[in-house]
């Protein structure tokens, strides 16, 4: 063996950041003979601390996937879109064609460009590109992903889970996890659960399915999907009745004591009392009213008061009335969880929180100037993901969870939820898109960033009732669509509603397959033509992808990207941070191996296009500011001279500054030599209660995380939501909708206090015909569609049965291994049934995104992914029936954020006479520029090719 090693001609190790999923672990890649020998975690990385996952290690096979695109492609003249009949072209031809399309749009109506990005990890850049182009129509994947989670957190605590905040399982004693299969920060979550387990902490998994992390839970709470809001309310009901509430915390750090005007039928109903627009007012124990900022945390939580002749009451008082209605008995009926269990779990969490605090010998000073000798934490932690988010009642359910956390006093405390820098941000963060049509004009950049957080109806991107964005984000239908609603784009573009677009650019999203719903119809819409002109309804489709996905077949032009091991990149604090709870962190990617000659990094390509189009911000006075993304990463600043750029470390000419400092022309080099990441550990006194920790707030101001040093009051009660409700009631003085249906949505769902309402599918007429809910789970070994091209990973999962509780199955005469029909109100599909006792009886589930269209991804058309795996998306409806024609399409989204309600779908299941996968999607013409697939793969990096 020694001789073999000696025989290897060259060996080097390169540090970079993994991209096999959105977790962004630090990895060290060893290269031998220019072949990848080994990928492993970087021990010092704050994200993964040296570990790596199945996908991460298998990155080798993704690099060498036969599914890789190796040259720009153009639809063969005369060929129909969707067939994948593409011919290679050179870069210049491809780019000048796109330049021509985009140039025309930009000179006439920039909104006719829709650029949507899926698993985009450079959203600061792609968003900037779109903004400089002047279109409002950009967003990443958040709409079909988990915007409910992000938005509900931002509108409650100015942070959220995953990249924004985190359960402190290193110190928690009691942990409850809702609806998580794998999640974005997957290695950190595994490390965290492991730490909890090492310490003997108690772990409760609330999930209709028991698997993965949940398999380790000390208690499994098999909840009926879509009912967590009721469960959470019942928990709070018990906590409130038992007095297991951290009132001191609520009074000092949240707006639970804030005085709310009770004035039904008037424009000020439900808004705050007090003349200071910025602050909240509270009642003090002596009955006097005054600003919360001066209350020393003494605001009371109950009672009724008069303020300027109006009746006012603390928000918490109203909430208690709400809680009184949601009893454990009622929750039992909805959730399927016994009353006793609900009461016990509430008692458990309340007891641990109130009676077993963690006390750290860390003094700190709060925003009232009170000095705390110690840092006290309630060691009860929660974590939640799409099990809550991907329902049409998800936003309010997650709001309930954050209110529960506030009640227990467990936000940014040891053992509780902790922010990740740069969070906390104000509630909600102070960034908003421009709300006016005039702000998106030919030849100009858009006035503001394209995504943000509206704080009142006046911030919506509407013109009357009409949406300004093609995806109808920030419209009356989806007012707080903080991440856009990518899932609405294709149907709206096809319907030419609110307007027709010219070019659809898709980067890193497989929107013709697994990230679409009603898949078959969506594919038709992508290829539909106008009857009169015979032209495509979506005239141009440009796909920027690295692999031969199903969506590539629908492109007119394909611009092939590098892999993550071939390009410069930044995991930026301006985007989704990789920070840890102890402090901010960011990292870079650097080329590890050379890309094939025909591919270029997408960011470089977009910069090239921006330069050709002379977009402001890219070209100034005729001079291109950035030659490529390497330049952009180092020199971009949020505003000229701000000193804040994509990367926070090694700023300043000499790399001496952190977070704020002049651009450093050798910044990437510095990162490369420091294991590709930068991490700043906050002082212990700055690590907790950061929304109200003066030392932290002052520092955050200095470092430009915040624009003022005032404490951030957590919003137990959301006045922002109330403004929308007022608009729905016709009481808001500013923008308000006209259509009754829109008004009703606002008035019904924009409740300033959280609660539960049934998922929309349950409200439809024939919902009882479909007794089961169908869910998908993320497999730990695959990342959406792109895992299946990986020769190693696909051996771990290549087909996906439908799992069903045998109790339920047997009552319907369904047997293990049987082919069944799974039918929703949209349509039906086949699948193979498998018994599992690890699933709640009204739920069926399968793995997400395993199925493939034959001939894509470099797979043989006979591959099990194409012949035996099933895609649930076929039967998930994209729209909801609506009686009001004038409303146009109502998508199957959360009415507040526009989050796609993947997990609302109801189905019935019965034996199938067909013993094969249906609907059948014809295998694609295989792209023929690759050699025959090998019979044997014997990968050995030590053997030079």
């Amino acid at each position, binding site marked *: 063996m020694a001789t073999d090693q000696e025989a290897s001609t060259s060996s080097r190790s390169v540090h970079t950041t993994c991209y096999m999923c959105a977790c962004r672990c630090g990895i060290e890649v060893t290269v031998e003979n220019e072949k990848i020998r080994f990928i492993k975690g970087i021990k010092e990385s704050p994200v993964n601390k040296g570990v790596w*996952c199945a996908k*991460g290690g298998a990155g080798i096979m993704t690099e060498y996937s036969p599914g890789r695109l190796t040259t720009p492609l153009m639809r063969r003249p005369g060929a129909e879109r969707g067939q994948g009949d593409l011919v290679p072209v050179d870069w210049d031809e491809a780019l000048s064609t796109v330049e021509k399309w985009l140039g025309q749009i930009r000179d006439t109506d920039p909104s006719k460009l829709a650029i949507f990005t899926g698993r985009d990890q450079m959203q600061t850049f792609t968003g900037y590109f779109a903004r400089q182009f002047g279109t409002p129509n950009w967003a990443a994947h958040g709409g079909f992903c988990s915007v409910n989670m992000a938005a509900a957190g931002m509108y409650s605590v100015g942070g959220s889970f995953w990249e924004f905040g985190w359960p402190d399982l290193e110190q928690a004693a009691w942990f409850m996890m809702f609806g998580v299969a794998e999640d974005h920060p997957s290695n950190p979550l595994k490390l965290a659960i492991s730490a909890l387990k090492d310490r003997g902490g108690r772990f409760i998994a609330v999930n209709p399915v028991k698997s993965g992390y949940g398999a380790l839970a000390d208690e499994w709470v098999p909840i009926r999907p879509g009912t967590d809001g009721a469960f959470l309310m019942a928990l709070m009901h018990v906590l409130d009745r038992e007095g297991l509430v951290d009132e001191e915390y609520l009074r000092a750090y949240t707006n639970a004591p804030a005085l709310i005007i009770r004035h039904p039928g008037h424009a000020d109903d439900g808004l705050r009392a007090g003349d200071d627009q910025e602050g909240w007012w509270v009642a003090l124990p002596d009955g006097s009213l005054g600003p919360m900022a001066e209350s020393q945390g003494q605001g009371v939580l109950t009672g009724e008061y008069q303020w300027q002749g109006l009746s006012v009451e603390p928000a918490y008082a109203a909430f208690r009335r709400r809680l009184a209605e949601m009893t454990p008995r009622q929750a039992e009926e909805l959730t399927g969880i016994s009353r006793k269990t609900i009461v016990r779990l509430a008692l458990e969490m309340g007891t641990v929180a109130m009676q077993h605090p963690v006390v750290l010998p860390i003094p700190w000073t709060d925003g009232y100037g009170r000095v705390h000798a110690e840092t006290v934490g309630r060691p009860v932690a929660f974590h939640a993901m799409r099990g809550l988010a991907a329902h049409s009642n998800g936003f309010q359910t997650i709001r309930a969870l954050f209110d529960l956390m506030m009640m227990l006093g467990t936000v940014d405390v040891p053992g509780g939820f902790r922010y990740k820098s740069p969070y906390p941000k104000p509630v909600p963060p102070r960034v908003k898109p421009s709300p006016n049509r005039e702000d998106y004009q030919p030849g100009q950049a858009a006035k503001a960033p394209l995504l943000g957080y509206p704080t009142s109806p006046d911030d919506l991107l509407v013109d009357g009732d009409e949406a300004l964005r093609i995806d109808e984000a920030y419209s009356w239908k989806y007012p707080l669509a903080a991440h856009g609603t990518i899932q609405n784009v294709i149907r709206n573009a096809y319907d030419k509603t609110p307007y027709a677009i010219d070019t659809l650019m898709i980067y890193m999203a497989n929107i013709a397959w697994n990230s679409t719903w009603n898949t078959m119809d969506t594919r038709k819409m992508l290829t539909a033509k106008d009857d009169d002109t015979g032209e495509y309804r979506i005239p141009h489709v440009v796909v920027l992808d690295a692999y031969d996905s199903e969506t590539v077949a629908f492109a007119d032009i394909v611009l092939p990207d590098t892999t993550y091991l071939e390009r410069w990149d930044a995991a930026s604090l301006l985007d989704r941070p990789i920070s840890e709870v102890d402090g901010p962190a960011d990292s870079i990617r650097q080329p590890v191996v050379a890309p094939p000659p025909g591919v270029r990094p997408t960011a470089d390509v977009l910069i090239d296009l921006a330069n050709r189009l002379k977009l402001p911000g890219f070209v100034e006075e005729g001079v291109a500011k950035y030659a490529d993304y390497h330049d952009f990463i180092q020199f971009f600043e949020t505003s000229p001279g701000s000193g804040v750029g994509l990367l926070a470390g090694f700023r300043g000419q000499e790399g001496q500054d952190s977070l704020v400092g002049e651009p450093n022309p050798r910044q990437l080099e510095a990162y490369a030599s420091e294991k590709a990441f930068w991490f700043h550990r906050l002082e212990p006194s700055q690590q907790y209660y950061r929304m109200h920790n003066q030392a932290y707030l002052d520092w955050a101001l200095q470092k430009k995380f915040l624009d003022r040093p005032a404490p951030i009051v957590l919003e137990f009660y959301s006045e922002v939501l109330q403004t929308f409700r007022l608009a729905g009631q016709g009481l808001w003085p500013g923008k308000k909708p006209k259509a009754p249906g829109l008004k009703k949505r606002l008035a019904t769902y924009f409740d300033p206090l959280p609660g539960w309402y049934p998922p929309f599918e349950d409200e439809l007429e024939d919902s009882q015909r479909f007794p089961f809910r169908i869910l998908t789970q993320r497999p730990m070994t695959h990342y959406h569609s792109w895992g299946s091209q990986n020769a190693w990973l696909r051996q771990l999962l290549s087909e996906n049965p439908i799992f069903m509780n045998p109790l339920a199955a047997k009552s319907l005469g369904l047997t293990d291994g049987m082919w069944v029909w799974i039918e929703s109100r949209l349509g039906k599909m086949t699948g193979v049934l498998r018994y599992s006792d690890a699933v709640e009886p009204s739920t069926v589930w399968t793995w997400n995104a395993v199925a493939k269209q034959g001939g894509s991804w470099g797979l043989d058309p006979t591959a099990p992914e194409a012949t035996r795996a099933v895609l649930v998306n076929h039967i998930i409806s994209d729209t909801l029936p609506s009686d009001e024609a004038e409303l146009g399409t109502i998508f199957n989204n959360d009415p507040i954020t526009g989050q796609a309600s993947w997990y609302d779908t109801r189905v019935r299941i019965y034996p199938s006479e067909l013993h094969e996968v249906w609907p059948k999607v014809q295998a694609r013409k295989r792209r023929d520029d690759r050699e025959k*697939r090998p019979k044997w793969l014997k990968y050995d990096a*030590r053997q030079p090719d």
Partner: protein
Amino acid sequence: MQLTIITDLNKCVGCKSCQVSCKEHNTSGAFGPLPDANPYEEADGMWWNRVVTMESGEYPNTAVMYLPKACMHCYDAPCVPVCPTKASYKREDNGVVLVDYDSCIGCQLCMWACPYGVREFDETEGVVKKCTMCIDRIEDESLAAEDRQPACVQSCPTHARTFGDLDDPTSEVAQLVHARQGFTLLPELGARPAVHYLPRRPSPAIISAETVDAHMESEGY
């Protein structure tokens, strides 16, 4: 000395990182490659470590468990004596069971003799391959200390796996096995595996049923 890997089933989430990191290291390692048949069709490849998912008990008292399964480096390894060529052998210095590909005839008898289904036949070379305890890593003095452990141990994102000398009572592995009632698989077959598993260690409810009943009663929930 008997090297071993202990897996804590109280922490294993079934992520298969250990399965892939094993393949990743070993396919280009001293005992590789690990071939894959029809990699882009109905793929069927070699893995020295496979994670099994088990379910037991009836709803709602269901247990779900993941079991990473590689060579157990048995004390009385049944795969060794059956080998006609002595290609399969157990190292005396550290207890690691290995295959010498140069003298293996590919008769596969060792595969039948191994109770655990962890030996794999390489059709392309006509030899049997299996977990080597990453012997080429742990004995490679040119590697950094943190790399001188099995790939599957190093990668495990829950730190469920621990590597060490089971015969040394002061080692972490020996102490874990002792303190946590470590068990072996199919002990009745007498192979005396060195690889142990640590059982689940549930944290019980902290509020008793009686207390709950009392609250239900007094509050009328």
